[in-house]
């Protein structure tokens, strides 16, 4: 599921020390300050001393500032970047096992092709399909296969990086001074 419509969410990418118990410290802090973690993805980085967490929180309950400041106080947290949804690239991966008897198999395969998804396993009367992309795309796919019967569904939680500049960096200060 992606964040329900109309609810603003925030994406935090948190660089942490790759040590035992760090996940528990971070997760505990969110719950203590009354924040609900919507999704959470943790993975190693190119530097083995650190891991990166991508945390999606619904920001209705309270301003995020306080929780970011409290997170910053954790000794194992190195750096926090807040990615506003409109300024980030978000992706997620989903695997879904759908009931697909002989007669339904064709339709499911067709949907899989349309979504540029991939069939990763086929059984007697079910198929497992992997979909990657924007969270909304994953939602759409699971909605469309629902009528066939979803046996199991598994999502990774989203990861995000900030969008890159589309134009060369301008020397803003210089321009302002001249104006």
């Amino acid at each position, binding site marked *: 599921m992606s964040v329900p419509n109309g609810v603003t969410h925030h994406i935090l990418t948190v660089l942490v020390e790759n040590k035992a118990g760090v996940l528990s410290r971070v997760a505990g802090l969110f719950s*203590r300050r009354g924040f609900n973690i919507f999704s959470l993805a943790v993975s190693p980085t190119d530097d083995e001393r650190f891991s990166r967490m991508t945390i999606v929180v619904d920001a209705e309950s309270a301003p995020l500032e306080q929780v970011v*400041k409290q997170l910053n106080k954790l000794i194992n947290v190195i750096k926090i970047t807040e990615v506003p949804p409109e300024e980030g690239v978000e992706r997620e991966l989903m695997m879904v096992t759908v009931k697909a008897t002989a007669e339904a198999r064709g339709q499911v395969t067709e949907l899989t092709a349309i979504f540029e998804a991939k069939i990763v396993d086929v059984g007697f009367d079910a198929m497992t399909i992997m979909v990657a992309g924007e969270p909304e795309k994953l939602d759409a796919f699971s909605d469309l296969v629902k009528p066939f019967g979803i046996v199991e569904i598994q999502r990774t939680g989203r990861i995000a990086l900030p969008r890159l500049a589309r134009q060369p960096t301008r020397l803003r200060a210089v321009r302002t001074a001249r104006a």
Partner: protein
Amino acid sequence: MKLTGAQALIKSLEMEGVEVMFGLPGGAILPVYDPLIESSIRHVLVRHEQGAGHMASGYAWATGRPGVAMVTSGPAATNIVTPLCDAYMDSVPFVCITGQVPYKVIGTDAFQEADTVGITMPITKHNWLVSDANDIPRIVREAFHVATTGRPGPVLVDVPKDVSNQTMEWYWPDKVDLPGYKPNVKGHPRQVKDAARLVMEARRPVVYAGGGILKAGASAELLQFAELTGIPVVTTLMARGAIPDEHELCLGMPGMHGNYTAITSMQKADLLVTLGARFDDRVTGNPATFAPHAKVIHVDIDPAELGKVRRPDVPIVGDCKVVIAELVKAVRAEQEKHGRPDLSEWHATLREWQQRYPLTYQQEDGGPLKPQYVVEALRANTPDDTILASGVGQHQMWASQLWKFKQPNTWINSGGLGTMGYAIPAAIGAKVGRPDRMVWAIDGDGCFQMTAQELVTASAERIPIKVAILNNAYLGMVRQWQELFYEERYSEVYLSPDLPDYVKWAEAMGCVGMRVDNPDDVVPTIEKANEIDDRPVVIDFRTDYREKVYPMVPAGGSNDDIILGPEFGEGGR
């Protein structure tokens, strides 16, 4: 040099300059108690692990150095949870060492196993579970660094028994490497300049001084700033003594039981110079109506405090000592250009409030003994540098209100957590840290019964503290709330004045016990207590149970609605 983990732990504590630790041995920590025999570190054997934690905290309050406690696993670790939480709320530097079941059996529900690191995660600044004896020197070094720098706080090092027995090659790290921990000490120069400008513009400014002043050792800087600007200072419960109470610019304590002038000065202020304070609910009352006209300068070493409750106009992240010194420079530069702002009208207003609404009580001759009178008599008959510890409740508020603090770091209490029973162990810790000082505990009868067994520790270890029980036979503060807000429906607050017999109890614990019922006997008994220096003294002061703490702002109410007390008539509002 090959050492066991246990030897390395003790040696690491010695390297950190630890002179004394408070603790109680047990199964999982046994290996560490063995090398302690040869160590230069003095160990104070407590009677309950909670006592060890509060003693370490009292030691830290009185000396400014980190307090150290060491206990075993499981129930010992859970017994020290309260002191850890207390120290966390009050930013007290406290290093706690706990034993743990052997690393290889963690997670099997072994005898005396508890997830100490998990339990204490939300109430420590950081904690460590040691998995390899080779990490011990590094972790101890990090633990002391984290506890004492930035915003101080408690840390915990959990040491499994097999790690204590493991052999390692001794080393001492020459530096601490914590990439995620870099407290900002120096204030941003532009912010300091902006703050100085606000100071120059203000006509009704107040310095709101919090515990951060004492943690930073910034009393001298605070005094300098106040005298340079003429800005009056309120000292919160955590900051009592940061500036002498008798200084003409000191307005005393604000908040729920603060005095009228301190509370109202903030309500009417056009600027709050907030130094190491955190807009606690006991100070602000309803934050929506707190200091409504004031711009706010907020200096704190913890960035998370800035904007947590009140959005500051000028936030400054930094150490109070450093930032106030910079602020003094910036204000002086402004004053040289524009002269010193005239605050005489504001001073006159404050003076008038102080005269009209002083703290009052009536001690009638032959009438029941008033607790406030005991506090004042104690202050008048003890040296200026006496260290005063208190528990939590009415006696704490009377002590904080009426004791005239003359020096910083002479007041020790449980502010944030409000831990009943804090006074006796905290006083013991303070006396261990400052044996040259007279140390008094003002305690309630309810509090006393929670931790009095540590007086056995005090007697056995020759730690001659003095305890004044303000015995009103009630859980007095709860009684006060039931009287005022629950239509005098008293529920489970009566304790009895004679049960236990405090004098006999004191004597049984190796202390001198005395009892005072009559106002005339107060001073002579205090004098007698002051002469005893070879053992602890306990005085059971039988005080008037009807006495309430005033002024009072009801919880969650506006600081504009102060109940002044019966002396002011008409419900005292």
